[in-house]
């Protein structure tokens, strides 16, 4: 079952098209990564899912209900953590957590106390005097202490230290074991790589790539360094080869993963003396998609 189903959603702010015909779905029990450069439209997509913004065109369904019309009902089963947590300055952290939980009709529980310990938060301080990371913790604790089935997290770790980031990732994996669904928007690729099952990449309001991490890796390029007995004069013309550079008999180049097999056959016919390869990383893929110059090369 799709927990989140976004169908051909467009969102206009005046003349500006923030989201351009976006479709994606998040299945029950998976951790879905949502990545893209600054201003790509991640937060806008998420705020539309939450019924805070009304889609100009298209439909969003959460738990098979309309995100705009049935927002209140949907939110009984959902927890949200914004990237920029703004709290009432004159309430303490403890009061804020209780208050946020009560807005979902949840009584403060042992779970909450355990989370406060785990995140190492002082709940007696006023929100005004909290650091960014501590405000983030307040929102995370309020979300994780709820019994939600779906967690929507918009860059939730932006202010956390590495130790707390690890706690956060552990909790995500625990939630996944309990069968919860998670949508995680993030700029931390290592984090996405570690926890996510599937990802979608958004750029300038359009989804430009989506699929499982394995599928994505096939789309990536690896870096190869080879030395052959016979000279490789025509290498730059081979299919799938990019950015090739030569120094004497050694070539350094990038290769589309899908052409690996044919290129290896051709190379071995020339007599390989040395071969080094760097495995494809998500980072290469993302950098390629993020960078407008490289990305537009791609589309040609």
């Amino acid at each position, binding site marked *: 079952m799709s927990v989140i189903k976004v169908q051909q959603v467009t969102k206009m702010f005046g003349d500006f098209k923030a989201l351009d015909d976006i479709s994606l779905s998040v299945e029950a029990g998976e951790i879905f990564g949502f990545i893209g450069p600054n201003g790509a439209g991640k937060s806008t997509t998420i705020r539309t899912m939450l019924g805070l913004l009304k889609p100009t065109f298209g439909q969003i369904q959460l738990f098979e209900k309309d995100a705009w019309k049935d*927002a*209140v009902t949907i939110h009984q089963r959902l927890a949200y953590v*914004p990237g920029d947590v703004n709290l009432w300055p004159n309430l303490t952290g*403890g*009061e804020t957590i209780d208050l946020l939980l009560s*807005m979902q009709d949840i009584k*403060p529980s042992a779970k909450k106390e355990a989370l406060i310990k785990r995140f190492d938060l002082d709940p*007696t301080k006023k929100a005004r005097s909290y650091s960014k990371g501590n405000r983030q913790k307040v929102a995370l604790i309020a979300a994780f202490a709820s019994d939600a089935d779906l967690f929507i997290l918009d860059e939730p770790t932006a202010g956390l230290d590495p130790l707390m980031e690890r706690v956060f990732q552990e909790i995500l994996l625990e939630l996944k074991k309990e069968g919860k669904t998670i949508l995680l928007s993030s700029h931390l690729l290592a984090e996405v790589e570690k926890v996510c099952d599937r990802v979608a990449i958004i750029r300038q309001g359009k989804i430009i790539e989506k699929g499982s991490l394995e599928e994505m890796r096939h789309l990536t390029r690896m870096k190869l360094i080879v030395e052959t007995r016979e000279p490789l004069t025509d290498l730059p013309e081979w299919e799938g080869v990019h950015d090739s550079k030569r120094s004497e008999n050694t070539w350094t180049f990038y290769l589309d993963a899908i052409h690996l097999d044919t290129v290896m056959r051709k190379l071995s016919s020339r007599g390989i003396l040395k071969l080094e390869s760097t495995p494809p990383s998500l980072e290469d893929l993302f950098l390629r998609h993020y960078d407008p110059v490289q990305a537009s090369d791609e589309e040609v």
Partner: protein
Amino acid sequence: MKRSFKGTKLAMTVLVRQHRVQAVVWLVSLVGASAAAAAAFEGLSQTGIELLGIAAVMQNPAMVAMLGPAYPVERYTLAAQFANEMLLFTAIAAAVMNILLVSSFTRHDEEEGRLELIRSLPVGRFAYLAAGSLIVTLIDVLLAVMTGLSLGFLGLDGMDWNSSLLYGALIASTGWLFGALTAVLSQIFETTRGVTIGSFAVMLFFYLIRSIGDVLNETLSYFSPLGWTVRANVFDQNHWQPVFILVGIALLLFCLAFFWNRNRDLCAGLLSDRKGKRQASSFLLSPLGLTLRLEKGSLLAWGTGTILMAASFGAVMNELETYLTETTFIQAFLGGEGEQMTSQFIELLFAILSVFTAVPAVMVLLKLKKEEKRGYLDNVYSRTVSRSRQLSIRLFVAWMASNLIQLLMVLSYWGTAQSLMEQPISFSKTVSAGLAYLPAIWVLIGLTALLVGAMPKGTVLVWAYIGFVFADVYLGELLKFPEWVRSFSAFYFVPAAYSDTLSWLPLIVLTVAAFLLAGLGDVGYRKRDILPD
């Protein structure tokens, strides 16, 4: 020392860019109000007898308490009447402008974190405060000159260039003094709200001291800057000394602000936070709890202020009584209608105080938009809270608060009047005259709900409307505003319940209108995007 001010120019550019619209709107409205009122006074073409009648009414202690000492009857020119009616309230409006501008130039930018960025640049520690102070000074100078010039050009009977400029200078220097006071308070309080409430409280205190002093003992009035403002006797004796005293004190206050600014951390006040509760009380978690907790400070402050004002005017009623029985000349002039003078005063007073009652209620609703802009509502609407519920909670709090404040206001007025007067005023008449304003106050609440719900970019219009309502209440009758203009004001339809029998129809119509406005606001609020800044 010079290094501490480095970057003042840069900070001024930043401030001007951020606040220029606000500043220009204030300046234009204040100058425009003075000029328009003066033009309207000129158009009245009163006969000498009429003017004499007004002069006589102004002598009564209740009017003196409200507006300051009266001008001598034998020299009561049109200009004197203008100053008598306009000077104090315009000076207070200028003070409100100064308080709001200075608090947003100083503590507000600091609270919102904008100052942090500026201070990270090679900019001196005093630059921002200096820039803010310079800009309000500039605005006040413009206010003085523009008001003075426009009055000078209009040249009512009794106005010359010297006195017109003095009038402008009085308004601006009074305002400037309160701007300086706000600069000091913004070093002490950590929040913008603390700063503005503190400044308004001090202003109210000075207003009341002057009221009591002007009626009972002049010495007391010299302890209030507003007392000096009205003692310049502009358009009659034209004393410039009060202007110099006001400016001098303002300068001292600015120095104090810089001194305290030097010794404190960014974002800290001189008063600091205590530790708070680990867990939310069941009160906070109740449906109304959060809103009441967030709004109680400003509701209490405004409510107390309004009630105190009512009580002090109640106390003056006994002076009015004595005055009316003693002054046979006035009795003769008014054809023995001292009773009418009392009831007119009560009705005017309640109309003015009702505007004050409406202000905190309107602010409760405007906070909903402020919370949206600051992103607090993302935490709320991503949970099982509907927009209608949140709006109706705020509407309910605003509604209850206005009812309660209005009731207490009327009771405290009646209570003090009752205890001091020989011939007590009627309880039932007083209460119905005060409560008759409730439906009109609800209309203001409904209008705010409509703006917050359906037109969030235009919420500032509610202040413009309240300004118009106030102008109509205060001057509409006197300056003979055309009927169709007056009928835009909800307060215009409030029946005179003290002198007349209460008519219910307008009250019912106003109530229905209030509900309609709020309902439309709810419809709009459910349809629109929730957008933080």
